[in-house]
């Protein structure tokens, strides 16, 4: 049995109320809005903190919008409600009566300060899912510690494996707020699980999402390497941290860029692919000689082979090497910069970027990477102006908007 609602966005009809002090919470709201949920962002009278964090459109701050805010808040509605005034909590309660999800992202201290008690809110609204992202958890010895993306990645483990071969340099934080992003992904999963449970039981519940724990289970191999052979892996430049050193995988190219490829010497097939590629460019040197057909000989002459490969990539442009290598069946990657993504023919053919008027002009914005065939994606809407939906959602009285003070 299929009804016509299947053509609507996947989360059409789901209402989310978001009160978020960090990018983790804001990202969850964005993900859900992209999938069709209605997301109402509650902001204090001065606006969410993210509105004051750059970069700003056209490199000038207010009144130009924050692109940081734009990025994490596309497609949401904004209602101003000063929760430090206890009498205004009735307005929040009214908003929650027809909401499916209350999304909180703040420290236990800030939640208490705002008078937000997740258990009480869940108890007061039987069908409501209260998802709370905290830095370390709602309780426990570190519950009141402060975090940031860098501190979160440090304590959570991912940072230890990221950096350079040169260990006089510190571990280097990977870009893009991935500490917050990791918490956001799990929070979205938790909300979806609770919604599925509610379809069965008719009841909502509270779900806690400690960012620290999200990172601790997101090290890929560092934890299994400890659990099993009990070894602490060592950082290497732009490749897996390992128990012992491995060869560089980053190769500079003629156009001053980089490709990523791991030379696999043990297996005949990838070896033959590499050698035939080199031969076509006249750079196989003696690698086609019989002695190189022995994996052990290749292993013993590893640095010689690596040197030939380094020279080979230095005469190729990065994109040329990427497409040629892939055409030969080699898992090679090109290190794209952000601006180059908008020119990528593959992403373009999948219509991944969507041109929308975001308030500062028409610009491309990434769509949701979750593609469910048959369910429509609404055009993304811009990030909201502060309080754009206050009157519509809360009425004009008692919300803390400046006009009623």
């Amino acid at each position, binding site marked *: 049995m299929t009804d016509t609602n299947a053509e609507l966005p996947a989360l059409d009809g789901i209402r989310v109320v978001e009160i978020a002090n960090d990018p983790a919470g804001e990202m969850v709201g964005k993900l859900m809005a992209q999938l069709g949920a209605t997301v109402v962002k509650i902001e204090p009278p001065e606006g969410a903190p993210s509105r004051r964090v750059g970069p700003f459109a056209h490199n000038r701050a207010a009144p130009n919008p924050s692109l940081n805010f734009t990025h994490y808040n596309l497609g949401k509605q904004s209602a101003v409600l000063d929760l430090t005034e206890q009498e205004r909590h009735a307005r929040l309660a009214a908003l929650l009566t027809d909401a499916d999800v209350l999304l909180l992202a703040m420290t236990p201290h800030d939640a208490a300060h705002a008078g937000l008690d997740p258990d009480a809110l869940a108890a007061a609204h039987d069908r409501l899912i209260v998802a709370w992202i905290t830095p370390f958890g709602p309780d426990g010895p570190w519950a009141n510690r402060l975090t940031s993306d860098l501190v979160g990645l440090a304590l959570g483990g991912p940072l230890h494996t990221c950096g350079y071969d040169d260990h006089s340099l510190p571990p280097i934080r990977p870009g893009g707020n991935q500490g917050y992003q990791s918490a956001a992904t799990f929070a979205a999963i938790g909300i979806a699980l609770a919604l599925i449970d509610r379809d069965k039981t008719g009841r909502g519940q509270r779900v806690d999402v*400690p960012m620290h724990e999200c990172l601790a289970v997101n090290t890929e191999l560092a934890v299994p390497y400890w659990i099993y052979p009990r070894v*602490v892996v060592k950082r290497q430049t732009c490749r897996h941290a390992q128990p012992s050193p491995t060869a560089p995988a980053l190769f500079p190219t003629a156009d001053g860029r980089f490709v990523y490829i791991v030379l696999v010497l043990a297996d005949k097939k990838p070896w033959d692919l590499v050698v035939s590629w080199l031969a076509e460019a006249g750079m196989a040197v003696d690698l086609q000689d019989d002695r190189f057909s022995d994996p052990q000989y290749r292993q013993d002459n590893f640095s010689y082979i690596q040197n030939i490969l380094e020279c080979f990539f230095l005469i190729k442009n990065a994109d040329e090497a990427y497409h040629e290598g892939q055409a030969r069946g080699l898992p090679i990657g090109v290190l794209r910069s952000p601006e180059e993504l908008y020119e990528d023919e593959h992403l373009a053919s999948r219509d991944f970027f969507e041109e929308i008027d975001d308030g500062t002009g028409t610009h491309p914005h990434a769509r949701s990477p979750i593609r469910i065939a048959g369910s429509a994606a609404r055009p993304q809407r811009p990030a909201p102006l502060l309080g754009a939906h206050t009157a519509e959602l809360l009425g004009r009285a008692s919300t803390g908007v400046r006009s009623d003070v």
Partner: protein
Amino acid sequence: VIEMTRPNGAQSDRSVGSRTGPLSGVRVADFCWMGVGSVATRLLGDFGAEVIKIETRKRIDTPRRLPFYKDGSALTYGQEVIDCDPNKGGLFNNYCRNKLGVTIDLGSPAGRDVAERLISTCSVVTENFAPGVMERWGFTYERLQELSPGVIYARMSGYGHSGPHQHYRSYGPTVQAVSGLSFVSGLPKREPSGWGFSYMDNQAAFYNSLALLVALLRRTRTGAGAEVDVSSVEVGVSLLGPILEEVATNGRRTRGDAYPTGNRLEWPQAAPHGVYPAAGEDQWIAIAVFEDEQWRQLAELINDGPATDERFATAAGRFGAHDELDQIVSAWTVTQNAADAAETLQRRGVPAGRVQNGRDLVEDDPQLAHLGTFFELDHPVIGPAKFEGVPLHFSRMRPDHWRSAPLLGEDNEYVFKQIVGLADAEYDDLVTQGVI
């Protein structure tokens, strides 16, 4: 923390009981292998789905072969042990807990027939092969709909199932390269430091879990199944953050000497903000000062008087003197125990933390111990081992950790006889022919 969700010794009894959780009653024909797919379907099994992992004896799943052994010397990832025991691999155990395991030779017509009969009992099918592999076996979305009306068919791949590069080969590090995540990570004027692990194997897996859950929600509400197409590269791009908007809106060019910024932030202009050496080998402390008062609290701990230096009183002043501040802070931290210094700073309201490694997380972290992050399950070959838990704490439900990873083909008899309904003679024939 040993999390025993079942009474009556689930550790020794590996037979299938009834599952609990929001996904109980959902049966999954899981063709996933390697990392991304296995981690994606692990979450389904954790929350009650009956995930039937379909393997072939002709090409043993890589995580079964990688040398993550409790009793072995530490080999480098990628090194494989010849003639290894496929039931001994710790990484497979980590990825495939709470799943059933069967073997089918999909290269044979009889194997594909058994697979179709299995699929017809499942409402979800998952796979992360290169595009075209499932089609070669006849497992198109159209065919799966015939076998299981309303099926959700989750396709997980590097580049997605359309577009000119859909057949490009990928794994975590190349996805990180192509999506921009490697380029945005590193010190200025140097090669990118990128990632020391396959972050995108994990994040793509988690996004695939989420996509499956959203498709299940949608099916409950509309009755409609779906073909789900998640490209790891697109997930990676979507994780890049505000730099995407800066490039699109402000026309910023990121290739040059000033980008990326290592451990420093561009926005907000926090300083000092970095990772500083502590006493001991490879010991580091991350410190993030966002506010003037946080700086005063840090500066008070440092003897040489930066607390009174007026240049450092404002965020702009500190940001402009970041090199000098890094030296001042490093000279102090290098004499300190990382965990103790972080604790002192936290008590003073300064965001700080030790850079913890895998050992620190599993053995020493009091918050993870409090949360019960790592739990233990027994395994017939590996013995007791710790597992990474789910970082979600619900008020009314919990993960159903009923069993460690299946031995190769461990659940053939149960699945093919009880679920698929093969008669004993038919089952024996398939065993004899090497089909299962």
